[in-house]
């Protein structure tokens, strides 16, 4: 049926192409740069004082090259990079040596996804509703205050806001833990008590993501709503004596939501990066902290693994959001 052909197929094609470009970029960037990771690891090992005779360094360079997948011509490396990627194998992590990169990522991925999913959806909904009503009933006092706050919080990058929250709520008024995802030693069961501690630890990172998210969507929706408010069908409904609340919800917000859905899809990449940084400030055990350690220790394979997985997560969630769009907009469903 032509809906699939017209809407679905192009979206799928772009999804695979964007994904392909992302992974290729991740693959080629390290190879373009002059520094050779093998050389750097060897110099670091030598700096630690261990004396290596030339032939031992030779064999070490040999095994490192294999670990880094730097064997053979660039094209062969590229092909077997994809082969291993499909199997989900990024080679072992150099810092925590034998454990493969994939298991490390799988440990921290659920944390990030959990935090990200809840805060993004919550902030999107809250921001839209608030922005919708602010746009429609724009002169009431309550929304003036919200405008002021959104002007303060929206421009702030994720790191600065998380730092402030950390200082205020964990240092000056220590009601929240300074970091981490759960108290050391307690294992995660589904008992009420452990869920509560989980929430306590996750509260500050979630709050910082939520604040920026809500206010960004608040402002975006307010702008869209103010333009939708002057559309003919809204004027016509007002002239027809339809109740203002119904107009606000069914006419204004429902139509203002459409550009916001594409907006959500386009900004997922940024929200993901923001989440990583916020996790770092609160040492929340998600991908962010893992990424920080990977950079700190120069763990090349882990870095490549995290980049590829994040590209996969982001592009897939954008595909999902894109596929949700027709449910809201009949103009796409029926030609």
């Amino acid at each position, binding site marked *: 049926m*032509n809906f699939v*052909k*017209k809407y679905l*197929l*192009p979206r799928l094609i772009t999804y695979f192409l964007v994904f392909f470009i992302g992974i290729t970029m991740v693959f080629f960037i390290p190879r373009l740069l002059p520094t050779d990771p093998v050389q750097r690891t060897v110099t670091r090992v030598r700096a630690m004082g261990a004396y290596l005779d030339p032939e031992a360094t030779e064999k070490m360079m040999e095994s490192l090259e294999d670990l880094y997948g730097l064997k053979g011509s660039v094209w062969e490396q590229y092909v077997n990079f994809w082969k291993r990627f499909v199997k989900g194998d990024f080679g072992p992590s150099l810092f925590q040596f034998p454990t493969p990169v994939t298991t490390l990522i799988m440990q921290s991925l659920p944390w990030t996804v959990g935090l990200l999913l809840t805060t993004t959806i919550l902030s999107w909904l809250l921001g839209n509703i608030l922005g919708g009503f602010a746009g429609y009933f724009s002169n009431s006092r309550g929304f003036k205050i919200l405008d002021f706050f959104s002007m303060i919080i929206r421009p702030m990058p994720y790191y600065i806001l998380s730092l402030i929250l950390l200082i205020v709520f964990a240092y000056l008024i220590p009601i929240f833990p300074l970091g981490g995802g759960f108290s050391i030693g307690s294992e995660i069961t589904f008992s009420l008590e452990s869920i509560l501690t989980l929430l306590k630890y996750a509260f500050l990172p979630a709050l910082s993501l939520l604040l920026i998210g809500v206010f960004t969507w608040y402002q975006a929706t307010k702008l869209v709503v103010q333009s939708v408010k002057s559309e003919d069908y809204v004027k016509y409904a007002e002239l027809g004596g339809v109740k203002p609340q119904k107009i606000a919800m069914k006419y204004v917000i429902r139509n203002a939501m459409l550009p916001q859905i594409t907006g959500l899809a386009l900004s997922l990449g940024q929200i993901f990066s923001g989440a990583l940084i916020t996790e770092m400030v609160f040492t929340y055990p998600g991908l962010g902290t893992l990424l920080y350690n990977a950079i700190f220790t120069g763990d090349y394979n882990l870095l490549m693994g995290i980049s590829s997985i994040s590209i996969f997560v982001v592009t897939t969630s954008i595909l999902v959001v894109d596929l949700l769009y027709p449910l809201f907009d009949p103009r796409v469903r029926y030609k």
Partner: protein
Amino acid sequence: MAGILKIDNLTKIYTLGSIFSRTKITAVDKVSFELNKSEILTLAGESGCGKTTTSKIILGFEEPTSGRMYYRDKEISSIPKSEKKQTLKEIQAVFQNPFSTFNPLRKVDSYFYETLYNFKIASNHENATEIIKEKLTAVGISFSEFSEKYPSEFSGGQLQRISIARALLTNPSVIIADEPVSMVDASLRMSIVNLFKDLKQEFGVSIIYITHDLATAYYVSDRIGIMLRGNLVELGPAEDVLKKPKHPYTQLLRESVPEADPKKKWKKRISLADTEYEEYSRTGCKFAGRCPYVMEKCKKEVPPYFFVDNTTVKCFLYENQGGEDDGLSV
């Protein structure tokens, strides 16, 4: 009277949609006509009938899918690059909305000086101002009222006259006016329409007048062509086409024009067309869906042109009366 501009089987097909779902819309379907020297030819029809697309192709803003155009008996596409600018100079245009004809952030007179310098008509500022003054008086605008001003500082009527003056700068032999008066107030409309008639007599300019308003078309033009969904269905002198319309669609159009006379109210009731989309893709005659005299033949075959008392009409009703004609009637 040698034809100054000849259009032969012009066709433009738009393909919409991405590589997977291709939908084809024939905006202009084998249109042929000839524009004589110092003549006003009207292309009239409802919105979406292809009249504006045709004008865009003639002005070179759109590429035709097929068909040829001859200017002074030379095929336009075959004119070498160097001479192309020369022909471009001789075909000018006047647009519908005066306020979007000029860039709101630039002074209006900058276009005038630019045109004169680009086409090397004037060498220096004084000589250029001289020519501009002359053209402005031709359209009834004084130079002082015109110079150093932005478009937003003029009224609609004034700006449209200035747009006509700009088209006259290069002493064109063909002007294409796309709905030039539909945005102008009714009471001022006549003064601009009269201006077109004067230009024809005074400067011998041939004008292609694009409109949906048949009454003004009848008042100003020598010959009228009626277009429907990309087809030129009827072409002939204004008197015959509008007083004795032959094609059933022209008859419907003629009757549906609300005349400013209470004695001439509509009598017959009409049924509205099915959605435009069906009419575009219809095989055979595009009017078959609404035509009161529809025959089986109309639905299957595309009617050819027939030449009946110096009007070309594309309808089977006239199959036996007039001889077949290749649509290039004088």
